[in-house]
C-alpha cells in the first residue's frame, strides 16, 4: 500500500534521513521504533509533505504520492502529530470537523463522527467544549479522532503515548487495535518500544536516519540486541516495571 524507497531528508546541513526504505501492507499495523532524534517524526513529516525530501520515491496505492500536505490528505493519508496539536481555540466538534475539511459527503461525515464518538465516548460528552480545556489524554483521543475524520486509508500516529499516564497508554494502544478493526492501515512511530512492538504486524528500527532492523513485532521483541537497546536489559525486568 505504501512503499518508500531511498528517502533522503536534510535539515539545513543535517542529514536526518539517510535512505529509508519501508513497505506497509494494507490492513497492517507497522511500527517504527527508535530513540529521540533518530528521525522518526522527520520520516512521518516527509510522508505528510510538511518536509520536502531531497531524494527518494514514495508510492501510495500504486501511485506516486503528491508532495503538498492537503493533496496527501486527499490521497488518503492522515497524520496525528506528535504533541497532539489539537486546535485549543476550537470546540471538540470543530476540531473533528477540521479533520473532515476536504470531504463533501455530509452523510459519510456524520457516519464517521458517530464512529469517533463510539471509539471515544468522552468526546461526545465534551463536544461543545474548547479543546484547550481537555486533559492530555483526552486531547490525544481528540487528535486521533480528528485524524480519522478524513476517512483515511492510512493513518500515521506520531508518539501517541507521549506524556500520558501508564493506564492511559494502555487505553491508547487498545484504541489503535480498534482502529485496525475499522479496516485502516496504521503506521505508528513510538519511543515506547515494547508496546509498539507488541501490537505490530511488522516493525522497523530506525537509528540515526537509517533502518537498521526489520521483522515482525514478535521477532523484534525476542531479538537480544533490541531487548538490550530498547526494552531494558531483559524482557523480564522491563515487564516487572510495566
Amino acid at each position: 500500500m505504501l512503499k518508500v524507497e531511498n528517502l533522503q531528508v536534510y535539515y539545513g546541513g543535517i542529514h536526518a534521513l539517510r535512505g529509508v526504505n519501508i513497505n506497509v501492507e494494507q490492513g497492517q499495523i507497522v511500527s517504527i521504533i527508535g530513540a529521540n532524534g533518530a528521525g522518526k517524526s522527520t520520516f512521518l513529516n516527509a510522508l505528510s509533505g510538511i518536509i520536502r525530501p531531497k531524494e527518494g520515491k514514495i508510492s501510495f496505492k500504486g501511485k506516486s504520492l503528491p508532495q503538498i500536505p492537503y493533496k496527501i490528505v486527499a490521497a488518503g493519508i492522515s497524520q496525528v502529530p506528535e504533541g497532539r496539536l489539537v486546535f485549543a481555540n476550537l470546540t471538540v466538534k470543530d476540531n473533528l470537523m477540521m479533520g473532515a475539511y476536504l470531504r463533501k459527503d455530509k452523510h459519510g461525515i456524520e457516519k464517521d463522527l458517530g464512529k469517533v464518538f463510539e471509539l471515544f465516548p468522552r468526546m461526545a460528552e465534551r463536544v461543545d467544549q474548547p479543546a484547550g480545556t481537555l486533559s492530555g489524554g483526552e486531547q490525544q483521543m481528540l487528535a486521533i479522532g480528528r485524524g480519522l475524520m478524513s476517512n483515511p486509508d492510512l493513518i500515521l500516529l506520531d508518539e501517541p503515548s507521549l506524556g500520558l499516564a501508564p493506564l492511559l497508554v494502555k487505553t491508547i494502544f487498545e484504541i489503535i487495535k480498534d482502529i485496525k478493526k475499522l479496516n485502516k492501515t496504521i503506521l505508528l512511530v513510538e519511543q515506547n518500544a515494547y508496546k509498539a512492538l507488541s501490537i505490530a504486524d511488522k516493525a522497523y528500527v530506525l537509528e540515526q536516519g537509517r533502518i537498521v532492523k526489520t521483522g515482525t513485532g514478535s521477532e523484534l521483541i525476542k531479538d537480544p540486541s533490541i531487548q538490550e537497546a530498547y526494552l531494558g536489559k531483559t524482557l523480564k525486568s522491563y515487564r516487572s516495571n510495566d
Partner: protein
Amino acid sequence: MTAFMQQIINGLSIGSVYALMAVGYSLVYSIMNFSNFAHGGVIMMGAYIGFFLLTAFKLPFLIAFGLAGVGTGVLALVIERIAYSPLRKRNAPFLYFIISAMGASIFLENIVVATIGPTFKTYPRIFSPEPIAVGNLSIGRLDLIMCVISTISLAALIYVIEKTKVGTAIRATAYSVRASALMGVNTDQIIMIVFGLGGLLGGIAGVLFGMKYTVYPQIGFITMKSFIAAVFGGLGSLPGAVIGSILLGIIETLTSGYISSQYRDLIAFALLIFILIVRPIGLMGKTTEDKA
C-alpha cells in the same frame, strides 16, 4: 454631561473606523505572526480609489464604496504574492517580512506622490452637514454612516470567521499552520483569503477616513493608530482589535474635547508604549504558549 456623551458618540464613530482597519492587522498577525505595515498603504489606496470613483467617475456612494473595497482587497492579495509569498516559501525570519512590508508601504506612498501628487484632496460632500438631533445630543450624519457601515462590515467579518467552514479553517490555521495543513487545509489559500478580507475592510475604512478628514499620501501613517488599537486590544484577537479600537477612539475624542486636539496623537502613542510595558499581550491577546 451632554458634552461628555457627545464626545463618547464621536469616539464610537471614529473608533469603529479604527476597528475596520485594526482587524486587518490582527487577521494577518494571527496567522503569520508579523505586523503587516503595508496595510496602512492599502487603506490609503482605498481612500484614493473611493475619492476618484466619486469625483472623476461620479459613481453613486455605495457603489464607490464597494469598488474601493474590492480594489484594495485585490491590492492586498498582490502585495502578499509579491512581498510575502516568496519569503514564506523560503521560511524567512519574521524580520524580513516586516522589512518587506515597510518597503511595500513606502512604495505605495511614493507611487501616489509621483502620479497623483502630494496635495490634500477633499471628498465631495455627500451627506448634509446638518446633524441629527437626538434629545440633547446632535449626531453628525457622516459619523452615523461611519458607525453603521463599520458595524455592518465587522458583523459580516465576524460571521465569516465564527460561523463558516472557511472561518473555522482560518481560526485553526491561526492556532497552528502545521496542524491545519495536516488536516488538508490549503494554508496558502487561507493566507490569501485573510489578506483579501483585511484589504477589503481596509479599503472601506479608507473611504470613511477620507470622507471624515481628507486624503493625502501619508494617510497610511495615521492609520498606524489602528495598529496601536490592535496592539492595545491584543494582536491576533479580533474582539480585542474591535474593543481596543473603540477605546482608542473614545480616548482620542476625550483628549481633543477636554485637553487639546494637539495632544491627541501624543496620548495615543504614549498609550501604546504604556501598554507594551504593562501588558505586552494586550487586553485579549494570545499568549505565546497558545501559539506553541
